[in-house]
Structure formats: structure tokens, C-alpha cells
């Protein structure tokens, strides 16, 4: 990275550290931070969409749809979420491959599940066996995103379901009195008003989502936890130009600080958004703001 890094063996102190922290592998670790941020930025809207669908389904008039919505919300209760993460990654992968298998190889005779093996025809493999490495990594990442979206979608559905019920009844009754259909009431009255009630729950969820990102490691994505373990381990001089003892403790301390800062920054930003949204609202928060200003 720096010009003085050409011969690491001669370096001392600060210079050694500067060179060590800018090696190619460390650059991959910094990119992994980008992976985490990317995951957050894709997952948050997707989970919100899942949550919205789940919450709308849960208050639907059609009974089967309502059951699906309620089950989706209820299933996250009582079970450790990490089990979901481990479950969904395999389950989704197999589901995709099975569908492709059905479509691409219709005349395949043998069963897909043979004892302990899950066998689909070569054309249905996901990603294809001859695909380049980056396709495999992207596919793994997309599976992780989908898993996160499903699990957090259930949390979000619960929050939004509560928020929809918190919208004052009078508002909906007024809409009905004006002759709006159920669909119109939902889109024009309920949805615009529910966000104030949903925001505290959603911001809490965002914090939780941040804290769940290290679980990416369990899904087989090369994230910061992976690199912290990889780079922190003791290194012998014959394998690397930067030998050092076991430093995993310091790498994880850095991760800990990273997450603490991230949480703190989110907290400050979300408080600001909340203050903006409550401004002028007929809620106790808005009332408190008005009194404080007066």
C-alpha cells in the first residue's frame, strides 16, 4: 500500500502497523464491512415489504390468507431465531433447486431424496457447477439476504400489525361513512397514518437487525467475523511477511467497538427522525413537543 512497505521484515512500530493493516487480506476485511452494510441496505426494505404483506394478510377478510399471515407472525415466537437462520438457508436452497429440477429435467426418474442425499440433475444445480467463483458468492449472499428478510419480515409484520390496530377507530369509521370501500380505506386512511405508531417498533427492529448481522458468518458468507478469525490467528514467519501471535482478541475487540459505534449513531439518527415525525401529531409525544416549545 505505502511505498515503504516493500520489505516488511525491516519495519518497526507504527510503520509496521500501517503496512500490516493495509495488506490485501485486510482490504478484504474492510470490504466485508461493506458486505454487512449492503446486507442491511437490501434487507431492511425487503423485510419491510415482507412485514407489510404479512400484516396485511393477518388482518385480511379472507380466512386462509389471515391464517397464513397470523402463522407467519406467530411462528417467530418461542423458537430461537438462529435456528431459523440455519434452517432457511438449507431449506431455501433445496426449494430453489427442486423447482428448477422439476422444470428443467421433467423426465428424471429417480427420487430427489435418496437416503441422506439430496440429488437433482446437473442442469438444475444452483449455481451451476461450472459457474465462476463470484456467482457462488453472490448466490450465497442472496440466500442470506432472503433468510434475513423472511425472519425480520415476521418481526416487522408483528410491529406493523400492531401499528395498524393503533390507528384510531374513528378515522376508519369516518372513511367508511364517506363511502370508501375497504380497499380505499386501507390505502388512503390506514396506511398513511400507521407509520407514526410503527416507527418506535421499527427503529427497535433496526437496532436488532444491526446486531444480527454477525450471524451472516453462520450462513457461510465471508463477513467480518470470518475475517477477524482468519486474520487474528497466530501467523508463522514462513507463511506470511507479517508474523504475529494470536491477536483474535484484539480483532474482536475492534468488532465490538464497531458495533457499539454503529448502534450509537443509529440511535441518534432515529431519535432525530422520530422527533421530526411526531412534530404536530396528535400523540403524547407530539403533545410533549408542543408543551416544551411553548
Amino acid at each position, binding site marked *: 500500500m505505502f511505498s515503504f512497505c516493500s520489505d516488511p521484515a525491516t519495519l518497526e512500530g507504527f510503520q509496521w502497523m500501517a503496512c500490516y493493516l493495509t495488506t490485501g487480506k485486510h482490504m478484504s476485511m474492510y470490504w466485508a464491512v461493506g458486505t454487512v452494510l449492503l446486507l442491511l441496505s437490501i434487507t431492511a426494505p425487503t423485510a419491510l415489504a415482507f412485514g407489510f404483506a404479512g400484516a396485511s394478510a393477518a388482518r385480511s377478510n379472507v380466512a386462509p390468507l389471515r391464517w397464513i399471515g397470523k402463522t407467519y*407472525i406467530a411462528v*417467530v*415466537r*418461542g*423458537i*430461537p*431465531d*438462529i*435456528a431459523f437462520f*440455519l*434452517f432457511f438457508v*438449507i*431449506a431455501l436452497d*433445496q426449494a430453489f433447486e427442486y423447482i428448477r429440477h422439476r422444470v428443467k429435467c421433467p423426465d428424471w426418474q429417480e427420487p430427489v*431424496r435418496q437416503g*441422506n*442425499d*439430496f440429488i437433482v440433475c446437473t442442469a438444475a444445480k444452483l449455481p451451476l457447477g461450472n459457474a465462476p467463483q463470484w456467482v457462488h458468492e453472490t448466490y450465497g449472499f442472496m440466500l442470506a439476504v432472503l433468510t434475513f428478510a423472511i425472519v425480520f419480515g*415476521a*418481526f416487522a409484520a*408483528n410491529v406493523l400489525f400492531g401499528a395498524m390496530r393503533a390507528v384510531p377507530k374513528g378515522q376508519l369509521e369516518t372513511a367508511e361513512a364517506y363511502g370508501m370501500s375497504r380497499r380505499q380505506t386501507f390505502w388512503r386512511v390506514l396506511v398513511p397514518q400507521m407509520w407514526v405508531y410503527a416507527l418506535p417498533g421499527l427503529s*427497535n*427492529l433496526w437496532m*436488532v437487525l444491526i*446486531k*444480527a*448481522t*454477525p*450471524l451472516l*458468518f*453462520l450462513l457461510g458468507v465471508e463477513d467480518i*467475523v470470518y475475517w*477477524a*478469525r482468519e486474520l*487474528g490467528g497466530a501467523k508463522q514467519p514462513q507463511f506470511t511477511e507479517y508474523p504475529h501471535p*494470536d491477536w*483474535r*482478541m484484539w480483532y*474482536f*475487540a475492534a*468488532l*465490538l467497538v464497531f*458495533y*457499539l459505534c454503529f*448502534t*450509537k449513531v443509529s440511535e441518534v439518527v432515529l431519535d432525530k427522525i422520530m422527533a421530526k415525525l411526531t412534530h404536530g401529531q396528535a400523540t403524547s409525544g407530539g403533545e410533549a413537543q408542543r408543551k416544551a416549545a411553548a
Partner: protein
Amino acid sequence: MSCWETIADYALRSQGIGERLLPRTDFTLCQQFTLIGSGMIWNVYFGIVALCSGFFLATAVAMGKAARNPLYRKPAEWFIFIFRGSPLFIQFFFAYFVFLSLKDVSTFFNPLTSAWLGALVVLFLNTAAYTGEIFYGALQSIPKGDTEAADAYGLSGWSRFRRVIWPTMLRLAWPAYTNEAIFLFHATTLVFFSGFPATQQRGDALYYANYFADKTFNPFVPYPILAGYFIILTLIVIGIFGFVNNRLNRHLPQDVRKKIKVRPQIIR
């Protein structure tokens, strides 16, 4: 091999008692039920010990955070912020590697690198921080009349805390504390997926569930079994805490008693 033999072989496998080798081929439902159930021993152990010990530290932390003296308040605030603001998963990893380097200092620290003590310490501190925040919130909402009544009776210091503040705090915090207890039991599943090694494959329920899912490529059997066990555990926790809740509120009329409401659980 009949199911009874399997149970005899594997029921205490997670404690290292019974058959050493885990099943490798021809997995039966009975094996999966028995081994995953055997792993639950660890989850229950971690959960109960961490809850019982964390309770006392949590009370101290809550009192510290509510104290006027910054000498008590600041450390308590930082303690809560660090443990609630960072992922438990990272805390496990960090703690494990700290314990590893402590091991080089003295053999006294050796047990800390094994899960039964090391992970327990992390869970203890973690639940103390979460519970401390709950108790602090409850302390803040103790009705003014209660403390004024205590003052009027001439109570002060320890007896005021013991007879008025503490019971009221518990009563107010109990529904939220129930949820915390449930989360804690769920959080115990992370132990063997972080740094802590499962020596001789003595793992918790999720460890065995994951083992079966990896071996059979079929996640649809072991994970639902695990889920079933955890739902039962959650129901037991709710039952016990509901009983305590009734006892804490036994002097109140039926309709003002606070009901325990189970909220969807959330990752830490």
C-alpha cells in the same frame, strides 16, 4: 435397535455419559429426538444459572444507574450500553479469546475457556445488563405515593429498599422480565456456534440439530424437533414466571393485576 436402547445410549450424551460415537448412518427419528433433547440439558443449565445469578447483579446495576452519584451511575450506564449495544455473538467470541489469553497467564483461568463456565460468565453479564435496564425502568416508574408512604412510616436506608422499593420494582418489572428470561433461553443456543468448543461433541440442542441437518441434508426434521422442545421450554418459563407474578401481586384486586404478555422474541 429399539428406541429404548437409543434413549439409554444417548439421553445423557451431551454430558458425556453413554455411547461415545454419535450415529453416522441410518438416522432414526428416535435418535434425533433423544440427542436434541439431551442437548437441551445445556440450554436449561445456561439459562437457569445465568438468570438466577444475573438477577442480583441486575438489581445492583439498576440501583447504580438510578443513583445520583456519578461514581455509581457512570459505570452502570456503560455496563448496560456495552452489553446491550453489541451483538451477543461478538461478545461470545471476544470473551472466548480473552479467556484464551488469560489461560497463558495462569492455570487458574483454565475452566473459563470451556463453555460450562466461560459462556456462562458472558450470559450472566449479558442478562444482568438487559435485566438491569428493565429494573431501572421499573425503578423510575415506582409510584411517588409508595416512597412517600415509606418516608411517612420513618423507613429509611436498607429497610426502605427491602420493604418498599424492591418489591414494587419487581412487581412492575415482572412482565418484561419474563420476556427477558425467554430471550435468554433462546440466546443460549449461540454458545456452541461462537468460539466455545463442544468438547467430544457434547453440545447443546442446536448443535445436535445442526449435526443431523448437515448429515442428512434434510433440515425439515431436526429443526422442527428443536422448535418443539423450545416451545415447551418457553411454556414452562411462562408458567413459572406467571406463578411468581401472581404471588407478587396477591395483595392487589384481580382486575388491576398486570398480566404477563408474551412479546415476539428478538435477537440480541
